């Protein structure tokens, strides 16, 4: 795992090594082991390396035999050994044992279609000297990030936006459309980012840059089969066996590494399964890592300990406090590069620091299971809402909503009139393509109350979700609503928040690479064809996965209800560690100077927290969103030069 950056002067002008070096130095946290530069013929590639495969031979940027191709690559190609064998049999000769070189030889054969053969997580750029073309690609699900911009005749790219900002020609401004998207969907919608003129290459897309311009095209689509009916027991058994085989193989190839691999263990179903599958492949004592909290509301250590005992791993736990969340939050935002509405990335930042301090560079984790196999509450909630909508006068059906959120006190004591309003029972699921997500998006959009009048005037005010609507696949209306909800989670929140703000960015802040068996595209494509009843049987989430897990993991973990990963929210910012930046960033004068938020509204919200009366989701998301946005403005717009390299807490 690494950091990449580069530029291409379309007018052929020389690329100075100083600019390249300045850019890649911003990414040294992603690759502290080695730095490499290549510059020739108007193109420059840079690489910061975290050595994981072929420690001696994997220096980058790397060329093919005749130096007609050069690559800078962030990620892992897990099927590189199989691809290498095929390429060898077709006469290719390799100078290294790295997966990087496999991409180059595959490109020689397949050109831009090479990505279709890759099983992995990647962001890379290949300079094709003969065609004078830069080819860039990002993995199917968006595990690895890639951003770009164009300044006059210069195309500039990087793993993180801070590398692009290090280029002297790039200006830094907030894009209020990106802000508007975060305060609706929890994430930006590619190609938009939080910064004006900085674009994100969407997951599953490649792009070419040459004399004819920039062309972005998708090479993979997340598709679902039309809903199917009942599944007989024999067929169910074969589905379970197939899923387990696929997951075992996805895990096996994700252990390919020349450094030790550890595992995250949250105490939930998914990471316990991936840890169990790792254990089946390796003989050595497995190292596992987890987060726990003092506050019982968030803590899962009871289940973590049970998994550790059952799987016999060598375990380390990071016990996270509110003050630690406050302490590292500025660094969390620096790495996330977009506002966050939850503090949940902060404990993951602290966890990756523990992993790094323990001498590990690679962890296997369970992300992606909830999206692919039907685990999220939002899927269940939509199912219950649809069920209630079909009999609006039922007194029994809404009770299911109370059972769905036992940890949310506010849901428990409400009358049905309120539940109908808050869960949008008036929305017709047959007419609204975003039925599952309307409650979340509408609740989040209420945070725009905090925007200043100027920002509110500038944002489009589009509440019809037209951008997302325009990106929907043609076959989307024919899918079952359950699959539609899965699609929305996988397309937007997974790459835009889970895999970035909580994933790549928090792990790579401490040079730790996450590997995700549930995001192997074979697993994803298999899961998208499964009958829905095997994902959620009545209201039993991840039904088929639980069946696969029998005997693999402790029965209590297989049976437990899903607990969403959460962390202490707005109250963290009342801790001593936050005092200095809260006073600076949220003072009425500073809020007015920065111009994004309404100063009196922010003061009212902060007062509410100080009085102890801020209890709601809106208050908490509002404060976290405001603090993170203010930190971004100060770190990236106002004082970027002062932060020439990332610093740690």
């Amino acid at each position: 795992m690494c950091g990449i950056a580069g530029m291409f002067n379309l007018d052929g002008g020389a690329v100075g090594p100083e600019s390249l070096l300045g850019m890649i130095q911003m990414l040294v946290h992603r690759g502290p082991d080695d730095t490499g530069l290549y510059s020739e013929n108007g193109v420059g590639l840079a690489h910061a390396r975290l050595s994981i495969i072929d420690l001696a031979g994997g220096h980058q940027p790397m060329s093919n035999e005749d130096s007609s191709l050069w690559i800078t690559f962030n990620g892992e190609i897990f099927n590189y050994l199989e691809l290498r064998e095929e390429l060898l049999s077709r006469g290719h000769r390799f100078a290294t044992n790295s997966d990087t070189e496999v991409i180059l030889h595959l490109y020689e054969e397949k050109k831009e279609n090479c990505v279709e053969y890759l099983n992995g997580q990647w962001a890379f750029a290949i300079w094709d000297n003969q065609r004078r073309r830069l080819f860039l690609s990002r993995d199917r699900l968006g595990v690895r990030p890639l951003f770009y911009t164009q300044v006059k005749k210069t195309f500039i790219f990087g793993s993180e936006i801070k590398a692009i900002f290090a280029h002297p020609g790039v200006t830094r401004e907030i894009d209020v459309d990106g802000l508007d998207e975060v305060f609706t969907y929890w994430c930006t919608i590619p190609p938009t980012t939080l910064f004006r003129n900085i674009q994100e290459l969407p997951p599953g897309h490649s792009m070419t840059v040459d004399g004819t311009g920039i062309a972005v095209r998708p090479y993979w689509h997340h598709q679902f089969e039309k809903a199917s009916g009942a599944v007989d027991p024999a067929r169910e058994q074969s589905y379970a066996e197939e899923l387990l085989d696929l997951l075992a193989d996805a895990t096996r190839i994700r252990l390919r590494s020349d450094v030790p691999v550890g595992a995250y263990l949250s105490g939930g179903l998914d990471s316990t399964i991936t840890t169990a599958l790792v254990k089946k492949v390796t003989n050595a004592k497995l190292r596992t890592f987890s987060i726990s909290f003092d506050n019982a509301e968030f803590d899962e250590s009871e289940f973590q300990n049970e998994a550790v005992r059952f799987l016999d791993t060598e375990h380390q736990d990071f016990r996270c406090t509110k003050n630690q969340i406050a302490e590292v939050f500025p660094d969390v935002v620096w790495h996330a590069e977009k506002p966050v509405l939850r503090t949940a990335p902060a404990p993951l930042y602290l966890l990756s620091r523990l992993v790094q301090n323990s001498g590990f560079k690679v962890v296997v984790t369970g992300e992606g299971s909830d999206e692919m196999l039907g685990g999220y509450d939002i899927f269940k909630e939509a199912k219950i809402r649809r069920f209630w909508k079909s009999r609006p006068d039922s007194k029994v059906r809404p009770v299911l909503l109370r059972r769905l959120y036992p940890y949310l006190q506010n849901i428990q004591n409400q009358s049905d009139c309120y539940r109908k309003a808050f869960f949008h029972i008036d929305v017709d699921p047959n007419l609204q393509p975003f039925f599952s997500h309307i409650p979340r998006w509408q609740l989040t959009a209420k945070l725009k109350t905090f925007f200043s009048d100027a920002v509110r005037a500038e944002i489009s005010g589009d509440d019809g979700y037209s951008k997302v609507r325009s990106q929907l696949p043609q076959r989307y209306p024919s899918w079952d609503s359950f699959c539609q909800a899965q699609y929305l989670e996988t397309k937007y929140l997974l790459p835009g928040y889970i895999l970035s703000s909580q994933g790549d960015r928090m792990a790579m802040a401490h040079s730790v690479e996450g590997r995700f068996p549930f995001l192997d595209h074979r697993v994803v494509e298999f899961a998208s064809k499964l009958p829905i009843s095997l994902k959620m049987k009545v209201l039993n989430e991840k039904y088929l996965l639980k069946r696969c897990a029998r005997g693999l993991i402790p029965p209590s973990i297989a049976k437990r209800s899903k607990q969403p990963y959460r962390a202490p929210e707005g109250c963290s910012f009342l801790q001593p560690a936050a005092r200095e930046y809260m006073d600076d960033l949220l003072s009425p004068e500073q809020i007015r100077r920065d111009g994004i938020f309404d100063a009196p509204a922010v003061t009212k919200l902060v007062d509410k927290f100080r009085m102890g009366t801020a209890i709601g989701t809106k208050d908490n998301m509002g404060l976290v969103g405001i603090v993170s946005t203010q930190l971004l403005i100060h770190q990236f717009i106002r004082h970027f030069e002062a932060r020439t390299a990332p610093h740690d807490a």
Partner: protein
Amino acid sequence: MTLNDELRQFVTDNFMYGKPYKGFADDDSFIERGIIDSTAVMELVAFLENRFRIKLLDQDLVPANLDSVNGLARFVESRLPPNFSKACDPSRIVLGV
């Protein structure tokens, strides 16, 4: 400050963060206008119980009582103990949530 003024102030400060939309009227539905969410109902109940020393039962938690400034005022008036002074210092209120 009248009862309506006080209730309106609470709703404006706590649910609209001091930024009422233009034309915010005492009969406007909090639900229809998107002023409250599920936790806001809890905040509202806590405020009423502490400020006016009344106890709300589950059957009281309906929009007829809690969904507009006028609805709140009618409900509070109907429940106020005879000797209650509405002029107590709101800054001393501690919400019990």
